[in-house]
C-alpha cells in the first residue's frame, strides 16, 4: 500500500505542471466521513466559510479515487481523469477532517498512521478528528499519533468546528 502511494506521488510530480493550472486560491480541506448526510452538511458549512473540499468515505478512497470500479468492472477515461484530479487535489490539502468509523476495514487511526508514514508535507498537515466516540482512550490515542484536535460529534456545533478549521488553515497560510 505504502509503495503504491509513493508511486502515485511520483506520478503526481510528473504531472505537476498540468495540475497547477486548475489550482484555485481557496484552501482545500480533505473530509473523510462515511455518513453522506453529515458529509454534505460538513461540505456545505466549509464552503460557506470559503473553503474548498475534497471528500472520501473510506481510507482507501481518501488516498486515491478508484481507477477500477468494482461494480462496473472496467476502466473508463472519466475514471482516470477523476483519479488524476483527486491526486492533484491531495497535493493541495491543507487540513484533514477525519471521522473515526469509516467504510471498509480501516478506520481513522489507520488513516493517520498511513498519512504520517508518507512523511514530507503530510506530516505537518493538521488533522481534526470529529468522531461520535467520546472514549477517553481513543481521544488519547489520536492525540498521541499526532492529531491536532479531537471533537465529539453532536456535542459540538458545526460552526465551532469549522471556525477552528478556518483558523488552522489560515495560520498555515501565514
Amino acid at each position, binding site marked *: 500500500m505504502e509503495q503504491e502511494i509513493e508511486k502515485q506521488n511520483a506520478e503526481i510530480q510528473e504531472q505537476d505542471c498540468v495540475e497547477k493550472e486548475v489550482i484555485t486560491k481557496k484552501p482545500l480541506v480533505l473530509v473523510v466521513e462515511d*455518513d453522506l*448526510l*453529515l458529509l454534505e*452538511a*460538513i461540505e456545505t458549512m466549509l464552503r460557506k466559510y470559503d473553503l474548498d473540499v475534497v471528500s472520501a468515505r473510506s481510507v482507501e478512497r481518501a488516498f486515491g479515487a478508484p481507477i477500477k470500479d468494482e461494480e462496473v468492472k472496467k476502466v473508463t477515461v472519466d475514471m482516470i481523469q477523476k483519479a488524476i484530479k483527486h491526486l492533484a487535489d491531495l497535493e493541495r490539502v491543507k487540513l484533514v477532517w477525519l471521522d473515526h468509523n469509516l467504510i471498509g476495514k480501516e478506520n481513522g487511526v489507520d488513516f493517520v498512521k498511513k498519512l504520517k508514514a508518507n512523511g514530507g508535507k503530510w506530516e505537518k498537515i493538521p488533522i481534526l478528528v470529529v468522531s*461520535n466516540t467520546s472514549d477517553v482512550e481513543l481521544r488519547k490515542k489520536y492525540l498521541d499519533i499526532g492529531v491536532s484536535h479531537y471533537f465529539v*460529534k*453532536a456535542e459540538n*456545533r458545526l460552526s465551532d468546528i469549522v471556525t477552528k478549521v478556518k483558523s488552522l488553515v489560515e495560520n498555515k497560510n501565514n
Partner: protein
Amino acid sequence: MRLNTKIMLPIAVILIFIFLVFFYLVLGLYKKGALITTQNNNYERLTELSQRLAAEQEKTEYSLLLYLINKDPKALEDIRQSDNAKDSEVDAAKTYIQNEELRKLLADYVKSRDSISIYRDKLVSDINSGDNNSINTSYGEWHKRTDIIREKIKAFNDSNKKYLSKNTEFYNDIISEFIFTTAVVLIIVPFALMAFYYYIKRHVTNPLIRLTRFVSKQNKKATNLNFEYDQSRVDEIGVLNKKFTEMSERIRNSQSELETQVMERTAELSKKNSFSDAVISSVGDALLVVDNDGKITLVNQAFEDVTNFTKEEAIGNKFYDLVEAYYEDGTMLSENERLISRARDGLDSRYTMENQVYYKRKNGELFPVAGIASAIKVEGEFVGGVIVFSDITKIKQMEKAKSELVSMAAHQLRTPLSSIGWYIELLESSEDNLTSNQRNYINQISKGNYRMVEMVKSFLDASRIELGTIKLEKEEFDLLNIVEEEIKEQAQKAIEKNMNIKFTPDRGVPKVFGDRNKIRMVIQNLISNSIKYSREGGVVDISVKNKDNNKIIFRIEDRGHGIPEEDQQKVFSKLFRSDNIKDIGVEGTGLGLYIAKNIIERSDGKIWFESRENIGTIFYIELGSNQ
C-alpha cells in the same frame, strides 16, 4: 460381685476357719499322743524294773539260803551287791517316775526292804552263832518279811500294768477321736456347706439370675418374649417372679403405646423435617450455615452445584479456607472483609454487582458472586451465620450486554443527532428569509436536540462505568481552578434564572489527587443541579475548604426544592429522579449523581448530602490530596 460369689465367699471363709480349727485339734491330739507314748515308755521301764527287783529278791533269798547251808561268805557278798544294784535301779527310777501312786508304791517297797535288812542281819548273826532255835526264829521273821517285799513288788508291778493298759486304752480313744474329727471336718462339713450352697443357688440365686438375664436381654433386643418361671412357687422369689411378669406386661403395654406415639410423632417430625430440608435444598441460591468458628455445618444442593465442593468436603471446614474470595484485581479478601465476619461485626454484609467479589470453585475457576450473610445470635451472643450467595456470571454478562447495547445505541444515535444539529445550524445560517415563527420552531428543535445529545452523553458515561472501561487518571490538580471555571461556564444559566452564585474559596487548599476531567464532570453536574433545582432568583453557596491536612471538602448549598425524605436513600441510584422534581418539569436523566458517586468513590473520596424538601440541599465531596 456376683450373687454366687457373694454366697461362696462366706462359705469359703467358714471352710478355712474350720480347717484351721481342725489343724489345731490335730495338733492337740498329736501332742497328747506324744505324751501318752512317753508315759507308756515309762510304765514299760518300771514294769521291767519291778521284774528285775523281783528277780533280785529271789537271788538275795537264794544267796541267804546258800549261806545258811554252807556259810559261804561269797553269798553274803552277792547279797550286798544285789542290794546295791537294787538301790541304784530304784534311784534311777525315781528320776523319771511321774505317777504319784507308783512313786508311793516304790517308796513302800524301799521302806520294806530297809526294814528287812535288820531281820537279815539277825539271821546272819544267828547262823554264825549256830544256835538252831534262834536260827529258826530269825529265819521265820525274815521269811515273813520277804513275803511282804514280794507283795510290794507285785503291787507295784500290778499298778504299773494297770496304768499301762489304761493309757493304751486312752491312746486308742484319741486315735478314734482323730478319725472322727477328720471325717467330720474334711468330709461332712464341706459337703454340708456345698449342699447348702447349691440349695441357696437353686432356690434363690438361680431364679434371680434368670430374671436378671431376661431383663438384660429384653433391654438389649427389646424382644417381647414371655418370662417363664415356676408358677407353683409361693415364696418371696415366686412372688417376685409373678410381680415381675405383671410389671413387664404393663411396661410392654405402655411401651407399645409409647412406640405408637413415637412413631406418630416421628412421622410428623420427619414430615416437617423433610419439608424444611426440601425447602433448604430447593433454595435456588447456594446456602450455607457456619458456626462461630466459621466452620461449615450445613450446605444445600445449590452450594454443591455452584462451588463443586461436595457436602462431605464442605462440612467441618472453614468457609474462608474452602471457598476463597477475591476482588476483581485479584487480591484476596482478608478474613475481616468476608461476608460472615462483616455480619458478625454488624457491618453491611452483602456482595452485589458493584462489590465485584469473586469466589473460587473447586476447580480453581473464579465466578462473580452476589450474596448476603446474616448473623445467628442467641441471647446477643454470635453463634454462627447463614450465607446465601449465587453465581452472577450470567447476570453480569447480561448487564454487560445491556451496557454494551446502551453504549452502542448511544454511539449510533450521535450520528443522526449530529445530522439534526448541524442541519439546524445550516438552516439558521441560511440567507433565506425565515419567518419569526419558523425561527422559533427551529430554536425548539435545536433545544430538543441538545437535550438528547446530553442524554446520550450521560448514558455513555454510565455504561462506561458499568462496563469498567472508564479509567481514572492519577494526577495533581487545583480544585479551586476547576470550580471557578465551572462557575464561569454556567454563569449564563444562573443569570437566566436571575440567580446568585457565591463562592468562598479557601486559598490555602492543597492540590487534589485524582482524575481532573472526571472530577470536573462531577463538579459541573453538582453546580448544574443546584441551578436547575433552585427557584427563580435563588442563591447557590459554594465553598472549598481544607479539612485536616490531607482532605479537601467541596460544599455546594442551594435553597431549592430539596429532596423528599423518602427519596433520600435512592438519590445515588441509577435513573432515579424524585417525584417533586418531575412534577415541576425540570429535565434530567437520573444519571448524573449515579455517575458522580461512582467517580468520587473510585477516586477514594466521599460524596454525601443533607436535604430538606422545600428548604434546600447541601452536597459535599471529600477528596484526598497528594500528601
